[in-house]
């Protein structure tokens, strides 16, 4: 399979997965580029031990999490460099601009994602894979290089934590 074919076949999957992590178009575009540049570099060494889709899922998840970590680090440093801190000022909240969300659901979805963003990375990943990407537990286990039981257990923990976070925030 050529790189061009790989891109054409999987671009939407990668882009949508990046959107679920970053929740805005600009960041998702950047992550998508990172993923395909990395895939291009690693194509020759891809050993075909897993399906290409699973391989791309893993790269996308890793690149998305790396991107978010780097973004949070930048925010922390810009906070230290701020000349004046007003009482109402705080860290910028992630800009929610997910084009896959219907307008009437935007506020509710933004609140849910705000809670999901507070989960540990692996719990966030399992929720996204099972409940937004609609993968089966077996497929999610292959992507996360884990067992089906471990994925089920992780999902239950993610659900409980999400419930706690949403109960403690306003509106839910």
């Amino acid at each position, binding site marked *: 399979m050529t790189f061009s074919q790989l891109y054409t076949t999987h671009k939407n999957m990668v882009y949508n997965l990046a959107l679920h992590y970053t929740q805005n178009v600009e960041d998702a575009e950047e992550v998508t580029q990172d993923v395909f540049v990395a895939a291009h570099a690693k194509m020759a060494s891809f050993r075909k031990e897993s399906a290409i889709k699973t391989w791309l899922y893993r790269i996308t998840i890793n690149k998305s999490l790396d991107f978010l970590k780097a973004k949070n680090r930048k925010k922390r440093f810009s906070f230290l460099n701020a000349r004046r801190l007003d009482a109402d000022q705080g860290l910028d909240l992630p800009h929610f601009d997910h084009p896959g*969300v219907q307008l009437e659901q935007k506020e509710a979805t933004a609140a849910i994602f705000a809670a999901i963003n507070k989960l540990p990375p692996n719990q966030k990943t399992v929720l996204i894979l099972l409940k*937004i990407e*609609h993968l089966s537990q077996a497929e999610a286990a292959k992507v996360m290089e884990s067992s089906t039981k471990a994925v089920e257990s992780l999902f239950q923990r993610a659900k409980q934590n999400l419930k706690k976070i949403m109960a403690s925030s306003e509106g839910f």
Partner: protein
Amino acid sequence: MEKVFDILNSIQPVDAPDHLYDQVMGRVNQSRLVPMGWIGLAAALCFLLISVDVYCLMIEPFQSVQNPAETITPVTNNGLYYD
């Protein structure tokens, strides 16, 4: 929690923008060029070599040895001939 998952379920997949492919290929082609770090390292090494050469030329030159024998047995008088 079911309401939360129903809302997440309603998220629709979207098409990736067309311009992304050009941007990806631009970055792929850029990564094929020699990285700037390597160029900087090579420049620093050249500068170091030239500096060492200049330093070696600037220090007092060695006195050239025209007759190696003189340095081994310097003869300052002809006393032996008058003994």
